[in-house]
C-alpha cells in the first residue's frame, strides 16, 4: 500500500513538472516596448478579387504650367466661339446649348 501511494505521488509530481515545463516553453516571451522592432508604415491596399492589375495612383490636383493653362483657355474660347458661330448661323435650342469637347465644361 505504501509503495502504491509513493508511486502515485511520484506520478503526480512528474506530471506537475511536465506541465510546468510545457507551459514555460509555450508561453509568449514578454518584451519591452523599446525592444519592439519598428515596422515600416505601409498603405492599406484594397483587396483585389478578380484582377491583379494595379490601379495607378493619380494625384488629385496637378499644377500645370501657366503656359499650358493659358493654351487650354484659348482652346476653350475658340471652341465656344465656333459653337456660338454655329448658333448664329442657324439659331435653335440644340445648337445654342451644344456641348464642346472643352475640358472646362466637361
Amino acid at each position, binding site marked *: 500500500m505504501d509503495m502504491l501511494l509513493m508511486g502515485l505521488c511520484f506520478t503526480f509530481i512528474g506530471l506537475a513538472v511536465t506541465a510546468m515545463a510545457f507551459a514555460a516553453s509555450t508561453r509568449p516571451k514578454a518584451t519591452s516596448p523599446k525592444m519592439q522592432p519598428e515596422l515600416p508604415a505601409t498603405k492599406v491596399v484594397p483587396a483585389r478579387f478578380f484582377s491583379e492589375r494595379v490601379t495607378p495612383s493619380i494625384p488629385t490636383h496637378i499644377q500645370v504650367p*501657366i503656359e499650358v*493653362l493659358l493654351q487650354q483657355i*484659348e482652346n476653350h474660347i*475658340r471652341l465656344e466661339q465656333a459653337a456660338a*458661330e454655329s448658333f448664329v448661323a442657324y439659331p435653335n435650342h440644340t445648337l*445654342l446649348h451644344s456641348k464642346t469637347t472643352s475640358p472646362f465644361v466637361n
Partner: protein
Amino acid sequence: MAHELLSGFSAAEVNQVLALGSHLTVPFGGSLFRLGDRADSLFLIERGRIHLTFPMVVRGKEEDVFFEEKSAGQTVGWSAMVSPYRFTLSASAPLETEVIALPREALGAFCERSPEAGRKICLNLAVLVGQRLQLVQAMWMREMQHVVELKSANAATKG
C-alpha cells in the same frame, strides 16, 4: 486685298479710302493697341494676323487671354468709330503683320464729301458690330447655361 469694311466699293473708291490711311508693320509679338488706349484710328489688316485679347487674373497674375483672331481683309479697332473712343480689348500680332491705320477724322471728312461711300461704310461697320454682338450674346447665353448646370451640380452634391 478685299477689305470687309469696303465691301461694295468700286476700285476707285477703295483707293480713295486707302489713301486716307498709313501703312503700319507690327512685328512678331508686337502690340497694336492696348485696352483703355484712346481709339483714334481703326485698322484694316493687309497681311498677317491680329489677336484680340482681354486681361484675366490667372493664379494671381494678370495675363492677356485670347478672345478672337482676325486675319487679312478683316477690320480691328472699330472702337475708333464709337464713343467714348477707347479700345475695349488689346490687339497684338502673333506674326509680323501689316495694317492700314484709318484715322477717324479723315474717314469722317471723306464720308461728308462722299455721302454714298459714307453710307456704305456705315452699313459695313454695322455688320461688323452686329456680328460681334450676336457672337458675344451667344457665348454669354452658353456661359449662363454652364453656370446654371454647375450650380445645380454643386447643390445636388451638397444635398
